[in-house]
């Protein structure tokens, strides 16, 4: 008798909380917030170039670089989110951090190790962190400006415009969205090119 009640109760609550509720919420979400509900996808020239919330790999000197990533084999695999899960006394962790620091210093001559903020040489929890710290962005301004033939002030202004503050001035930490910043850089470069062609 109790078992029969348990079976019926399981089915009824499964339908209510496992089917009706998620379907209703997905419906409402797509009605009220369609952009967010579909994953905050960024569309350029009719194709999806990424999600505003999901980081991606950047290797060119013309772009700001995000954090090291442990998601998937090549990093930033958004179908295999993961941190490195390496412990603080694990040789592998220390060696990879040392290697990343070395690579960064080679690519950015004139920068010393003590200027490198820790987020730039450590992997995030998700492997998909879309942001770097403002300090990490600042450190890359000179290199990106040089590679693009822009002034450092132009790039710095763009970084400032893409710096997210703490919520309500208190919660979380400030960050710079790397994908959005790089897209804005491409836009700026494109406008300047057009400007050069049309000016007399």
């Amino acid at each position, binding site marked *: 008798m109790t078992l029969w009640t348990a079976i019926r*109760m399981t089915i009824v*609550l499964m339908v209510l909380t496992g089917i009706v509720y998620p379907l209703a919420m997905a419906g409402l979400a797509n009605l009220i*917030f369609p952009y*967010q509900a579909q994953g905050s996808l960024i569309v350029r020239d009719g194709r999806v170039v990424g999600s505003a919330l999901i980081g*991606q790999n950047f290797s060119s000197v013309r772009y700001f670089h995000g954090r090291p990533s442990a998601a998937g084999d090549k990093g930033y695999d958004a*179908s295999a989110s993961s941190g490195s899960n390496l*412990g*603080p006394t694990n040789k592998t962790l220390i060696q990879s951090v040392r290697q990343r620091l070395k690579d960064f210093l080679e690519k950015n001559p004139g920068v010393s*190790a003590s200027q490198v903020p820790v987020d730039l040489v450590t992997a995030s929890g998700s492997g998909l962190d879309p942001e770097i710290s403002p300090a990490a962005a600042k450190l890359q301004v000179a290199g990106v400006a040089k590679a693009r033939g822009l002034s450092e002030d132009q790039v710095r202004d763009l970084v400032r415009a893409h710096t997210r503050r703490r919520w309500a001035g208190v919660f979380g930490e400030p960050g710079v969205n790397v994908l959005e910043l790089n897209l804005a850089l491409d836009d700026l470069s494109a406008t300047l090119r057009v400007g050069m062609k049309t000016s007399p």
Partner: protein
Amino acid sequence: MSNGLIQVGLFSVLVTAVSVPLGLYMARVFTDRRTFLDPILRPLERAIYRVCGVNPGSEQSWVQYAVSMLLFSAVGMLLLYGMERLQWFLPLNPQKFGGVAPDLAFNTAASFTTNTNWQAYAGESTMSYFTQMAGLAFHNFVSAASGIAVAIAVIRGLVRRAAQTIGNFWVDLTRATLWVLLPISVIGALVLVWQGVPDNFSAYTQVKTVEGTTQTIAQGPVASQEIIKELGTNGGGFFNANSSHPYENPTPLTNLIELVAIFAIGAGLTHTFGEMAGDRRQGWALFATMAILFLVGAGSAIWAEQRGNPQFAAMGIDQRESAGQSGGNMEGKEVRFGIVDSALFATVTTDTSCGAVNSMHDSYTPLGGLVPLVNMQIGEITFGGAGSGLYGMLVMAILAVFIAGLMVGRTPEYLGKKIEGREMKLAMLFILIFPAVILVPAGIAVVTKAGLAGITNPGPHGLSQILYAYTEASANNGSAFAGLNANTLFYNSTLAVVMLFGRFLMKVPVLALAGSLAVKKSVPPSAGTFPTDGAIFVILLVGVILIVAALTFFPADALGPIVEHLVMIHGKLY
């Protein structure tokens, strides 16, 4: 540092402000008084009872209550197991995932039924959308509701006089789901979507990135599952990276909402208890005890993580907190959360039985990682899991009055109920089962090949990985030192059994305790009664909790995180 203090302070104020109205509302819900949601929910409730053959007017003895709870859990577990095995055949599977392997399906079914939500799988590469919602989200609701039901039954046992019954499990289960969990989830899910959490049934998005490579972005009905994952202190992430994934927790605001949701019910139930006991100060005393333990843990974790890794400092890397960066040990942490919000989340998620993570605990400094471990070892009674936190704390309160009674040579009382031999035996059973199902299997794992094979961080950290796994399983937490390679026959099966023992072997004695207290008459307080609503009681209770945990777990913790800390500061690597 000062911003960290402000964040923790504001968060504490927010939790307190939410817990009082929520707790009083829950007291109304479970004493069948009118609430503002009745016009919508009463007809639905009646329909459910009619379909399921429940007579809401009839009450159950503790044995009937326990049998109903166990049968309901068993049926739900079988349903989830079947769903996982057959998901290739079921709808809403755009990625065409095959059936889940038997040992992993068993482990996951046990994990979600017990409110643990340990995940030996990665959601985005294993579970279909149908399994995620009808299997996993469903269990998020009912495992939490069943925990709340047991807590309410224990409160009834304490406050009723000479009663044979402690309520009706089916009614408590239904009312916890309809009146508490669902309405908050509906609102919470929409707020999360607004902030960027997706909620769709699309196939994974194929992206041509800015630099021309391809990226596959996993999608799904995330928001609806995300909110109940926190509110029900379940913690099973939609994605592998859990709440560190930007789709599960995109902004500092969603992080704050998730943090408050994790504490809300556990904190609220202390006030439900006070209200139902007719003496709100009794509830506040438990609340204060929990708040002290929370603040000590949060402070320690933030401090340890902010100090960073000495090996990084030796390379010259900048780990100092400044306007431009949070600094500290950022391995496994997200920029938007930094040190404070990550360490706070790690504390909150293990103060309760939640186990959601927004940073990777395995990569914490040894002392930073010790905080979540100790939080679980003291029994997750710091606000605690939905329901399980309150009944765990009440057992500790009974132990505390017993010890106080021994000191002055009087029969101990709690809320006017004499605590006698039978109650103490049941309380001790509850307290002893917990470490037994942690330390015995962890001991086996560290001396067997199959157990040692799971270690991915050698040295003392390897012991921490194994100790953490069995601690979280017994405590029904589900967070992890996630490097441990746990999707093996050995870990899937042993951890599943530990989760089931940790949940049901503890819930049954606690219901027996409720039944045993319910039949007692109440004795009026006298001059010799030890007051359980004041500062002395709170201090005693904190002391008892810490001493019990230290006596049980200190040797193991000393060999894991504490040794690792000592070798780390001397620069030794493994």
